């Protein structure tokens, strides 16, 4: 029986010249950790759902990526997190949008898939649902890192001079999107 796992940690203007060897190494090691965690589950007879959740949680818990801890900040200096999951056997799916207190949003999406009759929950209601599902909650500032805060301040400076700007969501992405 064939097993496989593939992951990503975001796409964008990632230039070699902007990456220090240490940073490059840190990204590769974290991706490797997530891949091996997921693959190990598959190799030992675990499900693809368990493998996906395991890999994504490792990436969510790493401040290197724009998900979970280390997520980018909104204009109001908060993190609003989105996640989704889909099961290919029966097309069952779950998603959350704009959650602010669930430590691992992918677990909230999974809970929506299994424990609600809905596909997507959003905002405060999604956070309330996650709490009722006994998922781990954190203070909103758990997600905020200095690096992302600096990025927001830079975007706001440009906003002052050029009008409203949404900054591209990916590592090293210097393309600015105009809303």
């Amino acid at each position, binding site marked *: *029986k*064939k*097993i*496989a*796992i*593939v*992951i*990503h940690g*975001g*796409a*964008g*203007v*990632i*230039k070699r010249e902007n990456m220090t060897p240490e940073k490059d190494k840190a*990204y*590769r090691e974290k*991706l490797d950790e997530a*891949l*091996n965690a997921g693959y190990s589950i*598959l190799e030992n007879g*675990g*499900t*693809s*759902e368990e*493998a*996906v959740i395991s*890999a*994504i949680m490792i990436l*969510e818990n790493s401040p290197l990526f*724009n*998900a979970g801890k*280390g*997520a*980018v900040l*909104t*204009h109001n200096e908060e993190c*609003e*997190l*989105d*996640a*989704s999951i*889909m099961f*290919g*056997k029966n*097309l069952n799916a779950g*998603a959350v*949008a*704009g959650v602010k207190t669930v430590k691992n*949003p992918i677990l909230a999406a999974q809970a929506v898939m299994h424990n609600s009759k809905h596909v997507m929950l*959003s*905002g405060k209601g999604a956070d309330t649902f996650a709490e009722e599902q006994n998922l781990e909650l954190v203070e909103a500032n758990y997600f905020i890192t200095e690096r992302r805060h600096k*990025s927001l301040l830079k975007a*706001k400076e440009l906003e002052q001079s050029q009008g*409203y*700007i*949404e900054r*591209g*969501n*990916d590592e090293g992405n210097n393309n600015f999107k105009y*809303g």
Partner: protein
Amino acid sequence: TVGAVALDQSGNIVAGTSTGGMTNKKYGRVGDSPIIGAGTYANNNTCGISCTGHGEYFIRLGVAKDVSDQMKYQNKSIEEASEHTIQDQLTEIGGTGGLVGLDKDGNIVMEFNTPGMFRGYKKTKETTVVKIYK
């Protein structure tokens, strides 16, 4: 954005995606990541897909299901379908980003139209592959 797609010993495909969205976003903006069919899709008969990129474009194209539909209705391989969706359709309307996916036979795709994408895969009897740049 982060994402993962896996195929287990029972032949089940699952895809998942998680994100913080875009810096400085307002008005409760939501991208493609939580939208089933846009940022995430899985079907055991075709493929599983997880996307990353400028969400508004991925929503308009329904990128993740678009790949699956090409496989289902046009008998394309996952490689052909992903290349068409990202390099032709997404690029044509000015969208940037990429996707990772796998099909029911464990074939892997990592397609993107940006200079880089943090990505990797591991499959039966093969060593782990991790890449960043194009």
